[in-house]
């Protein structure tokens, strides 16, 4: 899974907006790394992430920590480089022997690496989206939906919540909490999502329309 790879909306002009951490035990060593994964999960949660794996399913930190031994994976979202660097420094010192992957602007990750005395080992870089790109929603919607690597955050849900925010039925933060729910990996940056929802709601234009006519027809007023 390419999880956090293809997120749009991050720009070198706005550094330090987002760092997503993933800790994973390679499947051949996972059975022996239970205590190390538990310690890593405890450490990640201690730094107060904006979101973390399982949170959208209702898991508490107390439930997540022991699960890490069995799943061999922890993910979490951080919103500033100082916190990310302090966390990585502590994980480095622990010598857990499990993989740590950071997602974010390459410059931001390089910054974190240099602060803690690490060099990048392997990089996954996206050339872009190709093919029938006319089927994609507009940019700000993509900036939200691409945060879920499994594509579980619906463009229609974004449009629906923007309408509700405009009508005063929801705040952008409440909308972001709802949009984070489908992403079970807990990698939606709720703070960034709330900011984008706010921008979409303030735009004069109608919320982005879906290119699927059947969906638009089905949701017309008075159809129910």
């Amino acid at each position, binding site marked *: 899974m390419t999880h956090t790879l293809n997120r749009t909306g991050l720009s070198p002009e706005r550094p330090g907006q987002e760092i997503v951490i993933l800790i994973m035990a390679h499947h051949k060593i996972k059975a022996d790394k239970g205590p190390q994964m538990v310690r890593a999960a405890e450490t990640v949660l201690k730094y107060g992430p904006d979101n973390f794996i399982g949170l959208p399913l209702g898991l508490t930190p107390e439930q997540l920590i022991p699960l890490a031994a069995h799943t061999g994976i922890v993910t979490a979202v951080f919103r500033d480089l100082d916190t990310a660097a302090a966390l990585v420094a502590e994980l480095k010192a622990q010598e857990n022997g499990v993989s740590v992957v950071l997602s974010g602007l390459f410059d931001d990750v390089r910054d974190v690496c240099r602060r803690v005395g690490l060099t990048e080992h392997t990089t996954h*870089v996206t050339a*872009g989206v190709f093919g029938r790109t006319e089927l994609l929603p507009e940019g700000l919607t993509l900036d939200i939906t691409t945060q879920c690597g499994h594509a579980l955050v619906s463009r229609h849900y974004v449009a629906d919540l923007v309408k509700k925010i405009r009508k005063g039925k929801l705040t952008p933060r409440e909308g972001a909490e709802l949009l984070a*729910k489908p992403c079970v990996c807990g990698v939606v940056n709720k703070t960034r999502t709330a900011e984008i929802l706010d921008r979409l709601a303030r735009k004069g234009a109608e919320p982005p329309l879906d290119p699927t006519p059947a969906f638009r027809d089905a949701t017309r007023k008075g159809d129910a």
Partner: protein
Amino acid sequence: MRIDPERCRRCLECLPVCPVGAIRLQDKQVFIDQDACVECGVCARVGVCAEEALWREDPLPYPRIIRAAFSDPLHRHESTEVLGRGTEEMKTNDAKNEFTADVIGFSVEIGRPGVGACLSELDKVTRKVMELGGTFADYNPVRALMADGDTGALKPEVLSERVLSAIAEFTTPGERALDTLAALLDFIEAELETVATVSLIVRNQPDGTMPVFHDLAELGKRRGFSPYPNGKINLGLARPS
């Protein structure tokens, strides 16, 4: 996914949460278009239906179960024992050393972001990858769909199944990586009926730099794309200290 018409109160709250727009209203009844539904399970999981009218057949019959296997991250692939539709790829490269200075990884993810795809589109990609001399990752759910490992052809019975996305993961020798990429992009633009996100996995130099990024940017200038300024970086902490 299915909807219980006896329980449904037609509040329509479930319609927008479907990533592929498969939940619709017709003749004053909410229904799920079974051809469009990718069995991701979001509609039932996020709690928008107070009546719990949404449910999934359990177990799903083959080959429909493939939709869930590729679209629902809580569905564990029997072939990989990994949740989701991909592999560990570069995330554990510091432990397994699959991607080296001489071996570049590719991920071609059809249907992403958020468009979805029929597996007949994946079949086109896997055949093309084999034609280009790529080596498929062993530990990838796509391998389990192949009828012919030499041509990349998928099993005929899976071709009409729809998924949110599927990832063709393969490697090429480093010196052929950019030519392979250019050929793939030509193919995707000409042949695919959906979108595809294309990415590369590169082992960094000992000083952390990644010369391929410069070459990729140059190729992008000629072809009109810009590599993303963000991505994933393995920090190498799994290596024995």
